[in-house]
């Protein structure tokens, strides 16, 4: 018998929709009614194959979006066999973003690759805020083919200051090319000293983006980052995600930079 | 004044005939290659008093004390008594030195007394074997090595004994770290693979070297209580047909090994060429004449191998056949031109 209180037991969630972004990245819209925040994650559980931590990329009244990149045994299995109409998962885990922090005043979001998933909810909130003109979003992908959330990108572009860039592109590409960090110095900010920023992406990208923001005049305590670590359990038990005295799965993955700058690894 | 010495007796008494007239070298047996310090001091004393002050370390883990005058043989034999006693070497008459030289010093690598990979106490087994087969004038070479690495190069001997352990696996202690799999591949034969987080051992491929046990961080792998042996037969160096020994048994137990080596002496007594030069014919060359089937019959007499033991009764050897052709005729520039 399954004991209800066992926190390792996943629940069944119906797949409401599947959005295919690229050959390797799909968003699964999962039935879910409960509290959750962008930046939190679920452990998607495929019996006999394992579990994988997946960020929440969208939140609705009765669903969450999980954008899954096909990179391992578990995600592979999800892609091959999701037609079972449901997935097993447990969560949400982690702290997530407090979206309310960012809707007032000037905010910059810098996101790279799959790092867009955990901040998608934040960006959408910025786009729908009262002052979208004060919201600057730099989104970078490896190439035009790797772009995620194309519909959202279009929507955001219409509402706020979106800088969409790719690391590299085939000849003839008309969009912006270059790393996200390239666009930080020229952000048209009124007062960087009181502006807030969110940075999510691969470790080197985050490091250099934060550096750029600090140079631009951002205060450390006004920058939030989301740490990526291996999370086997999501419950502060397995130890893999620990950095110093912090457990990324419990205390993060979102950290204020004034804290995360001392989380050396 | 030249000495009147029976050279054949001299050789049997473990002295070498030197190229320097009137000189000899004393060949000291050191079964298993382990000698105590006291005996080593005595050897040093003999070398200084009767020899030329040097000591030669032989390939078979004995020592030779060169530069001894033929006249001092009796005196040297008396002095050697300490070494013989300390090594518990079987003797016919006290103070008369080593009673035979045909059966060569029994060789052993350091084995489990020292080496982390040794699968049994090679020294003890070598000494036990020495006790069973010496003295004997028949030319036998027996060697022991702790594991399949064969540091003792037992494949060059008539009887090579390699240690084996049968790895015992406790899946409940296995954390799937994969070190056994990796090290088996790097340091051994790659007999392990990871399936579903646990390890599968290919029992056909596994040579029982114990590398998995050595590297296992959890004691999921342990050694079998029993010590097992691979027995290789009739390797040799020499001018006619040098060759590596071939596998005769694996997973044999100590009793089986002991019996087949002892049985081989009876075979030699039966089949040795009565007219052999200096009455010396290597067992391998005798088997070349009689065929392996006959040898097999003799060495397996009264032997019931232990249950796990696998026996190969069809042995074929390769090696160089210099008695047929001393080949190496390279396809070189001379032929092409």
């Amino acid at each position: 018998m399954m004991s209800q209180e066992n926190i390792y037991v996943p629940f069944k969630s119906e797949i409401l929709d599947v959005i295919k972004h690229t050959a390797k990245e799909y968003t699964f819209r999962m039935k879910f009614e409960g509290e959750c925040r962008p930046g939190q994650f679920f452990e998607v559980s495929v019996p006999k194959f394992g579990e994988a931590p997946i960020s929440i990329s969208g939140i609705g009244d009765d669903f969450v979006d999980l954008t899954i990149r096909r990179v391992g045994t578990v995600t592979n299995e999800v892609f091959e066999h999701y037609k079972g109409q449901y997935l097993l998962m447990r969560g949400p885990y982690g702290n997530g973003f407090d979206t309310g922090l960012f809707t007032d005043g000037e905010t910059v979001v810098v996101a790279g690759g799959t790092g867009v998933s955990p901040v998608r909810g934040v960006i959408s909130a910025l786009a729908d805020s009262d002052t979208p003109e004060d919201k600057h979003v730099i989104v970078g992908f490896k190439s035009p083919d790797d772009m995620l959330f194309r519909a959202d990108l279009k929507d955001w572009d219409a509402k706020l200051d979106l800088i969409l860039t790719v690391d590299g592109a085939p000849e003839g590409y008309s969009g912006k090319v270059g790393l996200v960090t390239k666009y930080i110095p020229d952000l048209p900010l009124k007062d960087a000293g009181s502006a807030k920023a969110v940075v999510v992406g691969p470790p080197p990208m985050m490091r250099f983006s934060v550096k750029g923001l600090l140079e631009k005049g951002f205060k450390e305590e006004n920058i939030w980052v989301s740490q990526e670590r291996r999370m086997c359990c999501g419950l502060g038990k397995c130890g893999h995600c620990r950095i110093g005295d912090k457990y990324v799965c419990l205390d993060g993955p979102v950290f204020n930079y004034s804290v995360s700058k001392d989380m050396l690894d | 004044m030249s000495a009147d010495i029976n050279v054949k007796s001299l050789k049997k008494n473990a002295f070498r005939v030197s190229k320097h007239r009137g000189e000899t070298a004393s060949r000291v047996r050191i079964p298993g290659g382990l000698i105590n310090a006291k005996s080593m001091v005595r050897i040093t004393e003999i070398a200084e008093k009767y020899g030329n002050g040097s000591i030669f370390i032989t390939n078979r883990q004995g020592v030779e004390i060169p530069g001894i005058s033929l006249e001092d043989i009796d005196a040297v034999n008396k002095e050697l008594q300490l070494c013989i006693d300390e090594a518990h070497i079987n003797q016919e008459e006290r103070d008369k030195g080593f009673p035979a030289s045909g059966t060569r010093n029994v060789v052993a690598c350091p084995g489990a007394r020292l080496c982390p990979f040794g699968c049994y106490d090679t020294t003890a087994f070598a000494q036990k074997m020495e006790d069973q087969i010496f003295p004997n004038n028949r030319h036998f070479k027996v060697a022991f090595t702790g594991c399949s690495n064969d540091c003792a190069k037992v494949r060059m001997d008539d009887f090579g004994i390699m240690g084996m352990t049968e790895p015992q696996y406790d899946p409940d202690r296995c954390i799937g770290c994969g070190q056994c799999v990796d090290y088996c591949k790097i340091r051994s034969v790659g007999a392990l693979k990871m399936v579903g987080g646990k390890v599968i051992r290919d029992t056909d491929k596994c040579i029982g070297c114990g590398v998995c046990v050595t590297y296992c961080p959890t004691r999921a792998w342990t050694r079998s209580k029993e010590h097992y042996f691979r027995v290789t037969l009739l390797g040799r160096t020499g001018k006619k047909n040098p060759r590596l020994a071939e596998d005769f048994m694996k997973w044999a137990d100590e009793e089986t090994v002991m019996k087949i080596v002892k049985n081989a002496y009876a075979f030699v007594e039966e089949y040795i060429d009565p007219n052999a030069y200096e009455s010396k014919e290597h067992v391998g060359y005798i088997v070349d004449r009689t065929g392996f089937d006959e040898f097999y019959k003799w060495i397996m007499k009264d032997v019931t191998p232990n249950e796990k033991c696998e026996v190969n009764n069809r042995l074929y050897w390769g090696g160089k056949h210099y008695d047929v052709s001393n080949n190496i005729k390279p396809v070189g520039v001379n032929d092409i031109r």
Partner: protein
Amino acid sequence: MGYVVSKEAFDQVLQKLGEKYRLYAPVRKVGEGRFTDTDVVRYDFVNRLEDMELDAKSDYAFKEILTPLSQTLFFFTEGETKEADMDISDAIVFLRACDLHAVKSLDDIYLRNRFEDPFYKKIREHIKFALIGCASSFENCFCVDMGTNVAPDDYIFSIDAAGDQVKSAVCSDEVAEIFESISAKKEDVTPAHVTENPVHVEIPDQIPNSIFKSDIWDEYSSRCIGCGRCNIVCPTCTCFTMQDTFYSENGKVGERRRVAASCMINGYTNVAGGGQYRKSQGERMRFKVLHKISDHKKRFGHNMCVGCGRCDDVCPEYIKFSNIINKVDNAVEEEGR
């Protein structure tokens, strides 16, 4: 309160306890050591005093009982998930003072780090501890400097065996009743504990972040082979990795388990897509050491390391954890200068 009894009488106590509890204690497993003809001391069931190995430090800690090296959590059949049955018999675990301190760290992670781990809790609720007194320090122990030489109070009785006698301090009515029932001699007993170790460590109160850049870690990048034995034997290491598997070719039946993990073994930080943190063994050493002497304390108020020295006992590369602690201390001191 305490009792002094003969060994025979103590066995009666164990027998009575055994009717209600499983008794776990360090047991000498003959021949199950890493190397040939060596033993390992690890935890197993015992019935009598003589089953326990009380003269040696256990090579592997008691934690295997609370956090099994490999623990099946769920079984999967087609569409069904079943929680694995667990052995949750009431048990008494015999351990030394340092290890009893280590229990705190296990509880920190499994019961107090936000969530309660249901699997751990089930076992933990059924476990009581009995203290093994330490008459003298073992090699590599540094409990005194870690403040773990005197046991915390949460044991039900202690055991100090000397000569034909066993002395027990008893802190539980249930156990006292058993001693009374065999008319044991009452006496004031204080469990033996060491007051001096051969090894000393100094732990700095504050470790600045500059330690990350210190060159003290560099040598371990070449010295440490990343075997993880230190983590496996450590009484306070709790990390695990989830492992899913299926048994059959058709993949319909399988299980989810967790296995002990080591932050020193390659792969510990691997994230999907190929990313890895702390690639060098030096960085991994830093991660481990700082956890034991600083990071855990920041979160839970006490150090993780209990100074049992097992990591030093087991390291094949002779890396001394206690020495690293002192190197950190020196580096911090130099920095402050």
